[in-house]
């Protein structure tokens, strides 16, 4: 459902952020990408939903190539949700407005339909009572859950997560991971950049290790942790696993 072919991205000629990356992510699968900072993981995510323009290669989502002229990028983006490390909730709007903005403006849903759907989603992520609050009044974990609800409101076919728990205090990581696990188990196609290996072990179908813009190792979750082949993978794992 998401297909990446020979993707390359660079800002300066001598430094490639992404170097000939290829992958296929079938529907319903959860893929976790890990790696050191600067390895290109976030850039890869941003290329998938067109936030970043790549120089070489192709990305095909549900049969539509990002490069083709017929593709309206904003329509494609509506099909893919993204959750950011720093939540990026709109501070000048209430939680409810945050969730309903895109459905109202892009899907042209009526105010009432959008709000009903939003309340359902907020209940699903566990914070229906915060609907009329402003993001500034919420904790980090709550904000991130609202961010997930905001993306889900567009009924995406796939969700991208860019280090969703890296900016959270430890006691709030669990509540966000629980939402993500629930999402994965319900069949959502997910690409998650994270260091939370517990999450990966529980729901990932495949784990990939990226370094210097390339996939170094990609394996089904079980084998990835039990017997990593590549020495760089082993070194990385030994550093982040206690």
């Amino acid at each position, binding site marked *: 459902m998401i297909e990446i072919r020979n993707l390359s991205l660079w800002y300066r000629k001598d430094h490639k952020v992404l170097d000939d990356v290829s992958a296929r992510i079938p529907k319903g699968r959860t893929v976790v990408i890990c790696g050191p900072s600067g390895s290109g993981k976030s850039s890869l995510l941003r290329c998938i939903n067109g*936030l970043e323009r790549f120089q070489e290669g192709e990305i095909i989502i549900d049969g539509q190539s990002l490069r083709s002229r017929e593709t309206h990028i*904003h329509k494609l*983006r509506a099909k893919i*949700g*993204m959750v950011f490390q720093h939540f*990026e909730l709109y501070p*000048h709007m209430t939680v409810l407005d945050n969730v309903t903005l895109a459905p109202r403006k892009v899907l042209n849903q009526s105010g009432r339909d959008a709000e009903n759907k939003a309340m359902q989603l907020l209940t699903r992520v566990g914070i229906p009572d915060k609907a009329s609050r402003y993001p500034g009044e919420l904790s980090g974990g709550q904000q991130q859950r609202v961010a997930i609800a905001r993306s889900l409101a567009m009924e995406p076919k796939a969700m991208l997560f860019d280090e969703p728990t890296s900016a959270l205090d430890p006691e709030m990581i669990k509540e966000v991971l629980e939402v993500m696990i629930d999402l994965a188990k319900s069949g959502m196609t997910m690409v998650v950049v994270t260091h939370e290996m517990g999450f990966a072990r529980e729901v990932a179908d495949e784990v990939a290790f990226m370094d210097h813009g390339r996939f170094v190792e990609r394996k089904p979750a079980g084998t990835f942790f039990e017997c990593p082949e590549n020495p760089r993978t082993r070194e990385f794992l030994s550093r982040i696993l206690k």
Partner: protein
Amino acid sequence: MDLQVIARNLEFMAGGLVVTFEITAVALAGGLLWGILLGLGRLSRIPWVYYPASVYVHFLRSQPLILVIFWFYFLVPVITGKPLGAFVSTLIAFVAFEAAYFAEIVRGGVQSVSGGQAAAGYSCGLRYHQVQLYIILPQALRNMLPALTTQSVVIFQDTSLAYVIGLREFLRRVNLVDTREARSIELYLFAGMVYLVLCALGSAAARRLERRREVSLS
């Protein structure tokens, strides 16, 4: 010192103050709208939007306002084929001129909004104008409020330049009274004091807004 001269002509001069406020209001609203477009244009990656916007802003900021007023006074009738009068061409001149200054303020304001906000909006499928209208500009305008207030005070002072094409705003009316009554000292002190009080209030408001913003950011 004959202060009676002020009292006698107060109604006439106050009428000029109304005109001054009218010009200020139009220049503010029009200049801000046009300035937002120019400011966004200067942040654009599309060459045929970026270069014209930048040239416009740099050019107008290098000009004295008096010259711009004259230029539009000559130019507008040439384009429309008939004289539109001092008031209309002054308004056009002010909007065109102040927009160049607002453009830079807007540019700073938009840049002060975190880049992730736009990314979040685009990720949900919103398009450029929706992202700007619902997400970026509301936040940017809040950040710009002190600078916008200061610029409004500047516009209020700039209206006095409409004098040169005979527009009967406040200063021109004070001047007219002076030619009749020849009491320059009293009259120009009066004019100065009116501007001083009004502009000082405006500047004080801008400073308070700046301090409130600094507090809420910390």
